[in-house]
């Protein structure tokens, strides 16, 4: 079965065959013989050339987060056909407006900017209180605040858009 896998900034075409514990995985032109077992929910034991790995794989939206040997990797995987359709369809993988979204649920304790403000890297934008800590968010790039969608005292969920920026 053919996949296209993205890890970091590398895009690899992957082919996997086999069953019942024994697999052949080719990544680009490199071939791996893999002896794999499921040893728990999302937990795999891999023996590759006799080297033993235990990998935890958890699916988060389109991304597979893999923890192995103290490292954590985010891998996007697409079946090969889907990838072709999407990319030849000319859509962009990423993009969208520049926004600040809440990375975790919490309570807004302070909003330091208002619509129209110009911000430069390092400027404090707002503060979210969560798990007893005040988490300060600073601008990572220069820009102008177009929208402020939250106010101090308000509670937000992870993913909520808090601020929208323009050029």
């Amino acid at each position: 079965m053919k996949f296209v896998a993205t890890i970091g900034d590398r895009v690899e075409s992957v082919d996997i065959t086999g069953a019942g514990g024994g697999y052949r995985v080719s990544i680009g032109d490199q071939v791996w013989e893999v002896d794999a077992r499921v040893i728990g929910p999302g937990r795999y034991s891999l023996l590759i050339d006799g080297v033993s790995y235990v990998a935890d794989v958890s699916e988060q939206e389109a991304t597979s987060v893999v923890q192995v040997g103290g490292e954590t990797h985010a891998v996007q995987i697409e079946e090969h056909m889907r990838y072709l359709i999407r990319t030849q369809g000319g859509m962009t993988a990423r993009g969208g407006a520049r926004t600040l979204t809440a990375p975790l649920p919490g309570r807004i304790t302070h909003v330091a900017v208002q619509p129209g403000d110009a911000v430069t890297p390092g400027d404090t934008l707002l503060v979210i209180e969560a798990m007893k800590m005040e988490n300060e968010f600073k601008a990572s790039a220069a820009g102008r605040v177009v929208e402020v969608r939250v106010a101090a005292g308000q509670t937000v969920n992870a993913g909520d858009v808090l601020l929208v920026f323009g050029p």
Partner: protein
Amino acid sequence: MRIAKVLVANRGEIAVRVIRACRELGLGTVAVFSEADREALHVLMADEAYPIGPAPAGESYLVIERIIRVAKAAGADALHPGYGFLAENAAFAEACAAAGLTFVGPPPAAIRAMGDKTAARRLARRLGVPTVPGTLEPLTSDEDVRRAARELGFPVMIKAALGGGGKGMRLVPRAEELGPALRLARSEAGSAFGDASVYLERAIVEPRHIEVQVMADAHGNVVHLGERECSIQRRHQKLVEECPSPVVDAGLRERLGEAACRVVREAGYVNAGTVEFLVDAEGSVYFLEMNTRLQVEHPVTELVTGRDLVCDQLRIAAGEPLGYTQDDVSWRGAAIECRINAEDPFAGWLPSPGTITALKTPGGPGVREDSGVYEGYTVPRYYDTLLAKLVVWGPDRSAAIDRMTRALAEYRIVGVRTTIPVLERIVSHPDFRTGRISTAFLDRVLPELVPAPGRLAPIALIAAVLARYEGLGGGVLRPSPPSSWRWGRPGWTAGPQPGADRSR
């Protein structure tokens, strides 16, 4: 005075720790829980458990009368506050006494004396214990703060007057940054201690944070159990602690312990307490504050001295004599504690609440785990991020570091980000190995600790593709069926035979 049933007015790993001690002493245990904690581990482990209100601590774990009401209704005769929440609240201790409950901690007067950090500084001075230069009174007006800061000169440290645990603490390098830092400090102090007043200390450059564990009973016995090195901090909160400190020799231990006992006696202190000191680059020692409660990091002292501090706390509270003298205290080997927090160390220590979908804790020789979580548990967003404490003992510091390295590598938590990856890098850092550490260590080295691109990227890719392939019904791989131990042998593993090409 006797104790038969103890209400544990806390949550998380410390509530579990206290419940275990009670069980070993044959005492009944009563847990309390907020709406967010019905499934918390302390609720599952206690003999009894009762709800005390909504998720926010201010509406549950900090509501004195509710907790007392539960204690009376459940027939508890003693109350252990753990750390944080109401642990250093004198009014709480008084309310317990008024309700006829034994408070497992110091008398209210001692809590007050030490809880007011500026009063404690004044007391230490009176006893000739050196303190960090700074204000000796709490400051309520921002104007007073600005004036005092100008007089002290920058960098200065803002601290909550009723503070502790790094909450409401901010380092201010330059005058320009005083305003925002003060606002954050006051806001944190207010929500953490219900009092936004602060005080200032001159910031000591790259100090070591060293604290002394003290035990005092109601019969006038005061003993110290040596020091803990707590210099590895982020956001002024400890992350790695050890006993003994790599820089404290028998002589300095003696001097620190003696000073700590002097403070404790003067304050009329009873039960377990910790006196915190700063040690600057020249080795001068400054009294910082006293914590009138059990410390998060108490296990490293337990592993090295062989004492059980929580059992001792309960026995002392029951009116028993401490039962050992300073001469009975001995230190064997070295212990290190790593705090496993639900935070992303490489994203500004951002809290990471969520469900722990997979959990594998380390075991084997010299490994102790004090945990407040379990597989399938959802870490609520309302409380602090400490999930568990991994503590190891070794015959010497180097062996303990090797053991911690091994144990951290065995530790697997899936579903929430944790401090484990940064802890692995800290304990393997050459400066940590050689003990060249200070409270500035972590901020300084953090950039070099950020994970490399990742040697195992190809393995991760294989695992991810395999999981997807199987998810699509590819090789129909499934957990070995129970029938695998029935007769009929499994096929030979598909793994390569030894001697297969090992290039790579």
